[in-house]
């Protein structure tokens, strides 16, 4: 059996993409997620003629697809298997496109709850001269840049029960260790850091008894003061709430990243709660004021309250809201759906 599983060859896929004539009018068929939309937008960015992103056309020359065995890239009649690696990792890295590429890679890693693939790590390492830095450290967002409490409140994966989404509890936690509210993680001494990690692990243990310190220390990728993890969370959020256009805009003009991260911090900084989760025939219905069904799924998968095979909808008063990430529709932003028992 194992013989039939092809070896992933992302380097071949990269060559295939580079072979596309810039003068063509191209259509790229992609699944609806941050990674695929960013990768395709970056390719289209350099096409000279009108080009399109399609989510359902059957006639595109270039296609990104996700199947059970992994991801595929097809151009005309050539199909290449790329395994786990993100589509964005196939796009040539330039200073101008570095943020959307890192966002694409990181969002794929986050949503698939995996580590960076060897290919992804290698292409990022090869770009250290452009300013990318990789370090092994705690898997909470923007610890170089934001105060610890914000990093903790923004930690969607690992989900830290009581702390994720709660500015007050996050501040209480660091106060407990005797750290100043506005400190950054990088400013902690080793003792304080260890205490903090111990506290985090203890909290996570409530939902995952097997968790260890090593599980929350991973490869962490930065560019200037942008953390790829926070970029991923932010754009997952904005794909849900605004739609694909904001990702296309970001791919064209990476300078909007700062603005959007600030917006994201402002929104998450206000805190959110997750209430009851119920299941009907079509959906998992979540009572929450966090307006991103995808981020909710990410959390609820960790608390094992949902399965990946059913869309998440948010209960907002009488309305049920979800996003195009979960259902086949041409509407974008939060979409009202009909629930049924």
């Amino acid at each position, binding site marked *: 059996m194992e013989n039939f599983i092809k070896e992933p060859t992302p380097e071949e896929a990269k060559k295939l993409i580079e072979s596309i004539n810039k003068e063509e*009018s191209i*259509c790229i068929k992609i699944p609806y997620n941050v990674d695929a939309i960013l990768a395709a937008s970056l390719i289209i960015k350099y096409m000279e003629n*009108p*080009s399109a992103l*399609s989510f359902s056309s059957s006639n595109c020359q270039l296609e990104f697809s996700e199947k059970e065995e992994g991801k595929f890239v097809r151009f005309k009649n050539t199909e290449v298997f790329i395994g786990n690696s993100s589509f964005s990792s196939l796009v040539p890295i330039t200073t101008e496109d570095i943020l959307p590429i890192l966002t694409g890679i990181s969002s794929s890693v986050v949503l698939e709850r995996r580590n960076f693939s060897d290919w992804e790590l290698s292409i990022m390492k090869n770009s250290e001269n452009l300013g990318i830095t990789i370090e092994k450290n705690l898997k909470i967002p923007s610890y170089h840049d934001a105060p610890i409490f914000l990093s903790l409140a923004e930690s969607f994966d690992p989900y830290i029960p009581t702390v994720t989404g709660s500015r007050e509890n996050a501040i209480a936690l660091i106060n407990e260790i005797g750290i100043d509210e506005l400190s950054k993680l990088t400013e902690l001494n080793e003792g304080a850091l260890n205490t903090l990690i111990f506290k985090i692990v203890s909290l996570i243990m409530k939902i995952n008894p097997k968790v260890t310190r090593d599980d929350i220390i991973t490869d962490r990728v930065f560019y200037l003061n942008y953390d790829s993890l926070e970029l991923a969370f932010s754009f997952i959020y904005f794909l849900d709430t605004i739609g694909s256009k904001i990702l296309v805009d970001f791919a064209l003009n990476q300078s909007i990243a700062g603005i959007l991260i600030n917006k994201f911090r402002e929104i998450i900084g206000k805190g959110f709660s997750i209430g009851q989760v119920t299941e009907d025939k079509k959906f998992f219905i979540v009572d929450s004021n966090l307006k991103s069904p995808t981020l909710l799924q990410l959390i609820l998968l960790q608390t094992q309250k949902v399965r990946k095979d059913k869309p998440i909808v948010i209960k907002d008063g009488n309305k049920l809201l979800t996003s195009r990430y979960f259902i086949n529709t*041409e509407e974008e932003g939060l979409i009202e759906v009909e629930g049924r028992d």
Partner: protein
Amino acid sequence: MLDEILNREISSETPEEISLSEIQKISQTLAKIRISYDDEIHKNEIKVYEELAESLFEVRLSKYLEDNYKGKGFDEFVFNILDKIKELYISLLSGNLIFNDGKILCKVMKDTIIENIELKKGDLIFLDLQKALALWTAEYITPCKIVS
């Protein structure tokens, strides 16, 4: 006839309502002249009516421009399109469109073929401004706005 319509139009502050059936009647007579005759007199006659038509267009466009009056009747489509041009113009200049190399991001509203690309409802395509406006008017696409 066209001269009467134009006379009415220049004498009134607001645009007159001109029905398509009235226009079709005039149009039919002039079409017959076009098919029947090819001599100088009739060429002259057609030219006069073409100029009256142009003036009628200009006068009604003036009213739209000065007081935002939209002509009703056979030429409503003109003012629909002008409203769309204006809206696109404003979005364009006030930073509400997503630009790439002179082309703007548009969302496909119905299955169609654009630039030889088969597209489905909900897809995205970059189009130059003229094509975007045209296909927006034809209800094939809508320009993506940053703030809608």
